[in-house]
C-alpha cells in the first residue's frame, strides 16, 4: 500500500503536480473503500486506521493507495489525513495520461516504481491503456 520516494522523486513530482493543503482532518478513504486517488505525503501526517484504531502513522515521503486505486482493490486500512498536511494527489486520469506520455515525470516515476507493470492484472485498465495508445 505504501511506497517510499526519494527526495529527488518527490521534487520531480512536485514540479509536475502542484501539492494541495488539507486544513482540516479528513478521512481521505475509509477502510474497505477504493481510494479516490493515490497520495504522496509531503508535509504532515497520515494515519492508517483499522477498525477505528491507529495502525501506523505515515511520515512525509511516502506514496499511498496507488496500486489499490489502479487495480480497484479496497484498502485494508483507512487513510486519515491530519490537518495542515500537504500532499500531492494522483488521480486515475492523471496516471492514465502519464501512460500516454513517456516524457512526463509521472510516467518516469510510475515505471521506476513498477506501478505500470502491476496494471497487467487489471483488465479494465489494461483495456484503457490499450485504448489510449491506439
Amino acid at each position, binding site marked *: 500500500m505504501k511506497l517510499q520516494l526519494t527526495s529527488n522523486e518527490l521534487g520531480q513530482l512536485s514540479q509536475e503536480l502542484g501539492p*494541495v*493543503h*488539507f*486544513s*482540516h*482532518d*479528513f*478521512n481521505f*478513504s*475509509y477502510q*474497505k*473503500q*477504493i*481510494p*479516490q*486517488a493515490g497520495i504522496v505525503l509531503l508535509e504532515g501526517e497520515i494515519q492508517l486506521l483499522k477498525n477505528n484504531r491507529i495502525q501506523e502513522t505515515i511520515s512525509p515521503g511516502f506514496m499511498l493507495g496507488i496500486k489499490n*486505486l489502479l487495480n*480497484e482493490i*479496497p484498502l485494508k486500512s483507512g487513510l486519515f489525513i491530519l490537518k495542515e498536511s500537504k500532499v500531492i*494527489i494522483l*488521480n*486515475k*486520469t*492523471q496516471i*492514465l*495520461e502519464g501512460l500516454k506520455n513517456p516524457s512526463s515525470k509521472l510516467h518516469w516515476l510510475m515505471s521506476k516504481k513498477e506501478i505500470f507493470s502491476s496494471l497487467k492484472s487489471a483488465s*479494465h*485498465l489494461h*483495456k*484503457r491503456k490499450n485504448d489510449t495508445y491506439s
Partner: protein
Amino acid sequence: MKMSVPQISCEQCSSRKKSVFCDLKKKFLEAIDLTKITNIYKKGQIIFHEGNPPLGIYCINKGVVKLTMVGKNGRESIIRLAVPGDMIGYRSLFSSENYLATATALEDSVICFLDKNFIQKTFYEDPSLAFHLIQHMSRDMGNAESRMTSFIQRSAPERIIEFLLFLEKSFGVKLPTGKIKINLKLTREEIASLVGATNETVIRCLSDLKGRGILEQDGKNLIILNKSELENFIATSA
C-alpha cells in the same frame, strides 16, 4: 444494512436519468465506467470536508447525503440534502475554491467519484456535458433561491410543512393503507436545521399535526396521513 462494494455500469444506473450524465454518448459513459471509483459510505461517514480542496465530483447512486456548514457561532446548519441522481462537490471544483460545506452520509450510501482531470477532459471532448451541468447548476440555484424566499416570506410552521411535502416527494412510499411513509430517518434537530427553526418549534409543529390527524409516527419514521391537508395549508398561506 450490509452492502458490498458495487460494480455499477453507468448505462444501467437507476439514477442516471436524473443526473447530468443522462444524455452523454455511449463512449463517454464507457469512459466514466473505467474512471469512476464507486464506494459505499456508511451512515455518518464524511465524503468531503469544509475547508479542504476539491478533488472531483461525487454522484449519488443510492442513499442520502447532507451538506452542512458551520456558522461563526460554531452551529452546524444543514444547507441541503442530496438524493440519488444528484451531484455534489461541483461548485468548489469549478470555482477552484476549497469546499464551503461538509458532505456526510445520512444513511448507507453508494457514491461514485469522478476525478477533476477527467471532468475537465470530458468537457473539452463533449461540450454537451457542460450544457447539462449548467442546467443542473441552474436547477440547484433555483432551489436555493426558492428556499431563501421561503425563509424570508414563510413562518417556521409553514416551512416545516413545506419540508414535509419535500420529504414526501423525495422519500415518500405509499403504504397499502393509503398512508405515505417517509423513508428517511431525520432527528428533530436535523429537521430544525434544514428549515431554520428551533427544535422546540419543530416539536410543537409536528405534535400539532399529529393532534390534527395529519401526521403520525412509527418509531423514527414520519407517516403522512393527509397530504392534501398539508398542500392546502401551504396554498392558502402563500
